[in-house]
């Protein structure tokens, strides 16, 4: 019996140790946030080959998006001479072929990167902002507010994201802004959970208690003290989320429910090649490869950042 008690104690000790471990990493990563810790993270990241590869891919994609007018051989929207230009296979003039309106697929893929990159970046910012606010409020308030918020988050996560998105799209009229907002508004739940967990572990830290005892209001505590300390985690989780957002944006476009035409978006281009797969495989294939490259780039980058800056939090 005595022995039994001892075991329970040791169990409790273990969990205490776990907590303190987590806390320690938090202090390491964010509370002090000193230059040495940041630079040690960067030097670790520079040695992370996969992460660096991801960074290079993402950087290249942004260059392509930025320089699309310069490097594109043709106008992405202008129709070519029909029918001579229709469904031309890859050639020197059109390295990735042409589509059914005689448009140059390579130029369209270049311009399409603008849609994918902007939409996903803005959407992830929206998602992280909503998620951080919701998570911080839930974690800081605790009690019934926390319970209501978190159960709602659970319920929202039970509806697959694409269903939620499609429903919202059906409710409103379509525009690029709406797509961005909706993608953001349906992707914040994971971040909210993450931030809430962080806030809970920060809540009882001495400096928060000190701020409270000095009479700081809860808004000030959340914005000045709690949220800044979860930045590292938020940036990493945002990077890891972008890939998913790009995929779902492409899926929406493929279904004809994404960014409205004539703007070139990769998902829509895959769709346009669908009916002529056998005869003109290049129309669907190359935009798809562009999507894969982008998502792989972001995933590698996110994993690299995670391993370099925050190996414990995400385990």
């Amino acid at each position, binding site marked *: 019996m005595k*022995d039994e008690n001892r075991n329970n104690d040791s169990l409790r000790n273990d969990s205490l140790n776990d907590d303190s471990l987590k806390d320690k990493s938090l202090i390491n990563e964010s509370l002090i946030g000193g230059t040495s810790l940041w630079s040690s993270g960067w030097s670790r990241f520079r040695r992370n080959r996969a992460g660096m590869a991801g960074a290079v891919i993402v950087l290249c994609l942004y260059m392509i998006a930025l320089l699309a007018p310069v490097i594109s051989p043709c106008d992405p929207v202008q129709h070519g001479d029909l029918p001579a230009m229709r469904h031309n296979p890859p050639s020197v003039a059109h390295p990735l072929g042409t589509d059914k309106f005689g448009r140059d697929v390579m130029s369209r893929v270049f311009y399409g990167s603008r849609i994918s990159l902007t939409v996903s970046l803005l959407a992830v910012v929206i998602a992280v902002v909503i998620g951080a606010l919701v998570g911080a409020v839930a974690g800081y308030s605790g009690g019934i507010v926390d319970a209501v918020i978190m159960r709602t988050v659970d319920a929202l996560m039970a509806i697959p994201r694409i269903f939620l998105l499609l429903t919202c799209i059906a409710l409103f009229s379509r525009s690029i802004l709406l797509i961005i907002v909706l993608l953001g508004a349906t992707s914040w739940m994971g971040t909210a959970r993450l931030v809430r967990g962080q806030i809970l572990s920060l809540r009882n830290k001495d400096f928060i208690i000190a701020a409270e005892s000095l009479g700081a209001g809860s808004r000030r505590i959340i914005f000045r003290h709690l949220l800044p300390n979860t930045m590292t985690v938020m940036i990493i989780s945002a990077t890891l989320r972008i890939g998913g957002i790009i995929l779902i944006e492409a899926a929406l476009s493929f279904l004809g429910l994404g960014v409205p035409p004539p703007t070139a978006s990769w998902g829509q281009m895959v769709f346009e090649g669908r009916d002529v797969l056998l005869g003109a495989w290049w129309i669907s294939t190359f935009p798809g490869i562009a999507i894969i490259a982008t998502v792989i780039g972001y995933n590698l980058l996110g994993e690299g950042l995670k391993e370099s800056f925050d190996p414990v939090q995400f385990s």
Partner: protein
Amino acid sequence: MENLLEVKGLRTEFMTEEGPACAVDNVSFVIGKGETVGLVGESGCGKSVTALSIMRLISDPPGRITAGSVLLDGRDLLALSPKEMRGVRGNDISIVFQEPLSSLNPVFTCGEQIREAISLHQGLGRKDSRAKAVEMLRLVRIPDPEKRYSDYPHQMSGGMRQRVMIAMALSCQPRLLIADEPSTALDVSVQAQIMELLLDLREEMEMSVLLITHDLSVVAQMVERVMVMYAGVIVEDASVSDLFSRPEHPYTEGLMASIPRLDVDVERLDVIPGRVPDPLRMPAGCRFSDRCPKRIDRCLLEEPPMFDTGGGHLARCWLSAPTP
């Protein structure tokens, strides 16, 4: 006394980022049939690696046995095929680990984990092996063994779990039992019970025991012969009475001085100053030279061999060298 186990020139290395580190170096010893031998040293000195090397349980990578032989009844275990070696593990040689909490699989009942070993090595059916497992639980004095058979490890106390580990190790009547700090993780009161149990079972089953511990006082009551290990090498090998009456190696003296003694009034415990050397940066001469209070010049230059100081009392120290 006939030899059961003969270890010769055993060397085990671990790959590290900075190159191979030698955890066990040129270790040789024998264990006689029915003999109980203690292997003593600080944590990290290579005791457990020696035990795992004998069982060939060193995980590769990063570890590897690079030299030596381990003869069990004249058969070299290091030369056996993996399949033959599996026939030895748990059957001829068994091991009891230090941590009974983590050494039992949490998702199987204690009884099942014993039964598994029995049916594996003795080819018994489910029913017979179960009966045998219950018998083993009874042997290690677990009350109500029929009922406890179906308990999961988390339903048992630490002492009970260690009894289960012992039952598992002894279930196939091994000829050699390696007990790797079997009581260290337990309560003081339970420690004594476990040691007593091991002592009794050893007599009953007529097996040899290699008892690994960092605690010389445990050794004194349990074993016939003691080997002292330091930084991967055996520095002294003697019968218990010899060792305690005339320790040869300064490290052994230091260990003894650090045992709290009730019969002598001491102001403070003598603890050996300094630290165990980094396996990647071993001193050139004697490995204990940087901490040794009796160091002479030769110790820094040349590693001493094992000297027989008479009556099978071996010591790896230049001070024990026979005067020519």
